[in-house]
């Protein structure tokens, strides 16, 4: 069935590129946001360093890059959920069901499409980052990219689970938003998690975004993968559990 998987992935990628605004929206939107945010924060940092507080300049691209990576992943999840809902509603899944394709193959093909786009977005962002912050880009790109991919995969698997179950596209978008945006808010990117009440900390520790952010920050500041082994394990675990549940609860129609 591997042949079918690659063929489906390739076809879905082509279909996505044909979508009006598909490629532009996926690749250009995060890039524009990144450049815009970076310029704003750079301006702040420049003003700040003029009044002699110095470390913010190096920190500026740091959070923006992680936020951008996170947004790319969220974007991918939203679009995965929407596509699955549209396919389900339109009877496309039902038609695929009568073929030898398994739910896992169908979901995997869409995930690979999303990952390919994530990598492309990331490469564009890194290119932009190099131009905007020539001095600050001393992070290990490959390692960072690998961390983004692992994080995306884990976040995507949660999307899988939602995508497997949402009945219609009318439900898909709000459900996606309700689940995903709080996840970003609780990821520890905007405020430290230890400031939260204990129960919210527990919730946060079960979310893939939290571990993705921790891992990305670790890779960025040089503490490396070993220091964040628990986050890697958590991401892998979330991926495994969500994927298993998603294929089990997959609704064809």
């Amino acid at each position, binding site marked *: 069935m591997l042949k079918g998987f690659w063929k489906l992935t390739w076809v879905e990628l082509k279909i996505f590129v044909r979508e009006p605004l598909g490629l532009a929206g996926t690749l250009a939107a995060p890039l524009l946001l990144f450049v815009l945010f970076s310029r704003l924060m750079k301006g702040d940092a420049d003003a700040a360093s003029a009044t002699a507080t110095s470390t913010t300049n190096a920190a500026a691209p740091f959070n923006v890059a992680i936020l951008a990576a996170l947004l790319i992943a969220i974007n991918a999840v939203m679009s995965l959920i929407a596509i699955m809902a549209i396919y389900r509603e339109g009877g*496309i899944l039902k038609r695929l069901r009568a073929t030898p394709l398994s739910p896992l193959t169908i979901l995997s093909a869409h995930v690979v499409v999303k990952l390919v786009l994530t990598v492309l977005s990331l490469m564009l962002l890194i290119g932009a980052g190099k131009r905007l912050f020539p001095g600050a880009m001393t992070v290990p790109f490959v390692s960072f990219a690998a961390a983004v991919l692992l994080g995306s995969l884990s976040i995507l698997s949660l999307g899988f689970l939602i995508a497997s179950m949402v009945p219609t596209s009318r439900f898909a978008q709000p459900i996606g938003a309700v689940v995903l945006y709080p996840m970003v808010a609780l990821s520890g990117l905007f405020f430290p998690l230890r400031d939260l009440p204990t129960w919210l900390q527990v919730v946060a520790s079960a979310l893939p975004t939290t571990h993705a952010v921790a891992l990305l920050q670790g890779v960025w500041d040089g503490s490396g993968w070993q220091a964040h082994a628990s986050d890697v394990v958590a991401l892998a675990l979330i991926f495994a559990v969500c994927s298993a549940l998603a294929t089990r609860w997959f609704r064809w129609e």
Partner: protein
Amino acid sequence: MAPPVISVRQLRKQYGTTIAVADVSLEVFEGEIFGLIGPNGAGKTTTMECVEGLRTPDGGSITVLGLDPHRDATALRQRIGVQHQDAHLQKRIKVWEALDLWATLYERTVDGVDLLARLGLSDKRDAKFMTLSGGQKQRLFVALALIHDPDVVFLDELTTGLDPQARRAIWELILGIRARGKTVFLTTHLMEEAERLCDRVAIIEHGTVIEMGTPRQLVARHCPERRVVFSSDDHNLATRLIDIPTLRLTSSDGVTHMLSGEGDAFVTDVIQAIARHDIRVRDFRTELPTLEDVFLKLTGHGIRD
């Protein structure tokens, strides 16, 4: 006789408290076109989807090509071709891409280029699914159902919503499938379609098969009456035609005369009587009952009610 290709025994399926299929038993044999006919909501699609292995029955047993549609789903999917009612593909998938994708999913395939040509879709190879007309979409679905050279083809309401011309083209296609030795299991609520295509039909209502046989048998069994309509200026017809033994009913407006009777001999009897009495007729036609009449008689309502 060879064992049936499809065998359904006392199939039952319900959704919540709604009973979609109450009691369906039928057998489909190799090389025939078998039609499941009945109004919308009678349980046609549910029955078909249970046979295809897409739904789990609540009762009864099904075998297709000697396989259990549920337990042997993987093996069966290689050997059956399926077309769904209201099916769709990705809006922007191209015709050749869909065919190419489907072809990679199966172990044995036929030549896609040849298949498209046979279905009259050659010039639509590069067209996106969303740009195809209703008839073209249905032909593409037929192509997808045939790409792996299946032994049994399932067609659910294939021509619903098509214009008469596209419908006729699809009928030719289905007859072509049978000509290549395949077994076809179709559902339709169009009696004309069933009459034109099907070797045998089962009439289903409220989830139960109420009658089964060849269209001819069903008509002969339930609607044996024949009607002859002719025009003549001859004035004292009635007294001269009264001696037709099979005649049951006549009506006349003075010019157009309608005679009803039963049995295959009736039409011949009328012709002979007209000849015997040297009656000049300007126009003569026979009206035979159709499956539609059978349906009306059996259920007490029309199929579209």
